[in-house]
């Protein structure tokens, strides 16, 4: 990538996007574009080779981000992005595999793949665009819909408790776990960059907003209202450590929760290949297609 002459970073951000498909399909005030921007800035900052980046997504509003990124990308089936990504990464560990997923995609239909990917520690970076609702299908509750919030399938208020996705990921063995929010895009980009740099499985939850299907039903009809909510409720993890559970009521923590070095899966598998007596190195068994 060529550095922009004006130093704004603007030229670069758009060069990573398929602007021929813009304006994108997300609603006015939707936070997904903000999170996508943070992801692009993280990739730019690390100067990842765009030919080696593969973006994998599932189904839902967030999943459409894969189609806007100018990398190899797979927009897969609902919930299965991490499983597709695991196949790509194991087949070609040299690729930088990024999963873009929504909260329903990741934590409901894709929950099983998520917990096992955390456990396996394959070097995939998962960015969850958590807007607390199923947006694409117009407002049903997700595993991240807050207790007592309204949704089309919770017309009297939601009676389930949401996951703490970061605690779940860490508990399942994810070696890099962070949470940011759309309101803090620069820090969100930092967390994503940290995940991309990390060798094992990285999970970044991006708290984002759906004004259309979550906000309107919950007295925050504009993206602005929901961003303000994020601004007021986000507590850095360092500060949260000094707060009581009562003080943290209704808040969410942001920051890096875990950054641990453990053996990465594809490296472990390379050891298996050596144990099995295979001698040649490189990409054997996977020749480049002849031209």
């Amino acid at each position, binding site marked *: 990538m060529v550095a922009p002459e004006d130093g704004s970073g603007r030229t670069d951000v758009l060069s990573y996007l398929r602007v021929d498909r813009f304006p994108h399909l997300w609603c006015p005030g939707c936070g997904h574009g903000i999170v996508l921007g943070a992801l692009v800035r993280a990739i730019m900052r690390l100067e990842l080779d765009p030919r080696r980046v593969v973006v*994998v997504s599932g189904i839902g509003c967030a999943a459409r981000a894969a189609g806007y990124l100018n990398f190899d990308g797979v927009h897969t089936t609902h919930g299965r992005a991490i*499983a597709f990504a695991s196949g790509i990464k194991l087949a070609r560990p040299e690729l930088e595999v990024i999963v873009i997923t929504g909260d329903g995609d990741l934590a409901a239909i894709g929950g099983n*793949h998520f917990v096992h990917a955390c456990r396996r520690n394959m070097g995939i970076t998962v960015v969850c665009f958590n807007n607390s609702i199923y947006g694409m299908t117009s407002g049903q509750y997700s595993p991240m819909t807050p207790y007592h919030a309204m949704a089309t399938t919770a017309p009297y208020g939601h009676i389930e408790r949401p996951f703490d996705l970061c605690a779940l990921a860490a508990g399942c063995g994810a070696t890099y776990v962070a949470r940011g929010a759309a309101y803090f895009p620069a820090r969100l980009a930092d967390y994503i960059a940290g995940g991309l740099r990390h060798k094992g499985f990285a999970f970044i939850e991006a708290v984002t907003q759906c004004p259309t299907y979550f906000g309107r039903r919950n007295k925050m009809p504009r993206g602005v209202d929901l961003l303000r909510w994020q601004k007021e409720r986000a507590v850095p993890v360092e500060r949260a450590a000094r707060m009581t559970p009562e003080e943290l009521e209704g808040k969410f923590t942001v920051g890096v929760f875990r950054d641990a070095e453990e053996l990465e899966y594809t490296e472990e598998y390379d050891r298996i290949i050596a144990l099995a*007596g295979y001698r*040649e190195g490189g990409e054997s068994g996977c020749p*480049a297609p002849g*031209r």
Partner: protein
Amino acid sequence: MPRRADRPALLQGNEACARGAVTAGVRFFAGYPITPSSEIAEILARLLPQVGGKFIQMEDEIASMAAVIGASLAGRKAMTATSGPGFSLKQENIGYAAMAEVPCVIVNVQRAGPSTGLPTSPAQGDVMQARWGTHGDHPVVVMCPSSVKETYDLVIECVNWSEVLRVPAVLLMDEVVAHMRENVILPRDDDVVIWDRPAPDLPPGHPDFLAYRPGPDDVPPMARFGDGYRYHVTGLHHDERGYPLHQGSKAEELVRRLHRKVERRRRELTKVEWTVGEHSGPALPEGLAEGRGRGAGRTVVVAYGAVARSAEEACRGLAAEGRDVALLRLVTLWPFPDEACRLAAGLAAGGGEILVVEMNLGQVAREVERAVGGRCPVRHYGRVDGELITPAEIAAEITGQRGS
């Protein structure tokens, strides 16, 4: 992989499947344990790293199918193996592979269903699921071996066809073939024909590159992820760039092309074997192919998989007794061998009949009926109790029909 000598090896069907896959160039397997297919995963867990390939046991069958598609996009020939319940779980992603045109092979070792059924008993109840298991009109290739050796050969065929057509291919085994052990002579690796997916003519970054622009054979050349083509793959209807589209006419064009690319190769794809008297081969013996009206009293048995072995024994026994019987063994199930069935109808026309023998309640029999279009009677004999149909049963079915 050591080159095998031309000497017999005692192999199980599942083992032949695993070995054939490696010979075919499969370098990625993702699976989930399920009887009676698990040996395929176990053997590939051992073999694949020996050739620099990758094996992973995923958290379920859905994930296995997904990982296989991912690996294929990344450039590896990829396969999974399962049985009925797992085959059901894989269906959505099989449809994805059909739509996104990602080569992959799914081995389904059939067991008695529905549902959990009889996990260790054979059946042939997944013929229609193999064709229509995932939603929407999708293309698929399905082949069905009758022996250990043929399992080896057909898994290679499935990989080859899947690669060149960019279509999911199903190797539809049954528990008998999977667990049976036979002495087989495997071909030398050099004697095996291996096909690769078509590669793009244009270099990465070329402005004219379109990931889904089909070639003259209706198959788009396939770029490998990570090579710089930077293209988009989706299960949505898409244009030649791979971008989602919402225009009905374009969607129809795509679905029709997906079918056309398989139909174009129908003649090569649909394999059968005829057994008439001493003759056994992919075509009818000379003179018979055109023969019409000589079939008074002739029975043409149609069978596939393990049942075809029973049918062959029954037919040979009856032929030795002077009965006019023939066997049409279906090797390819989808695309369905319509033409061979019509030939069978020709043999049986004028007083004979076709007897379809299968371990289900008539899944192929109805297809045969459709194919022969009333040219001769089609009768079905099936069982669904998890027992292999025996030669004696088939012989009795043939002779009993003569009013003995």
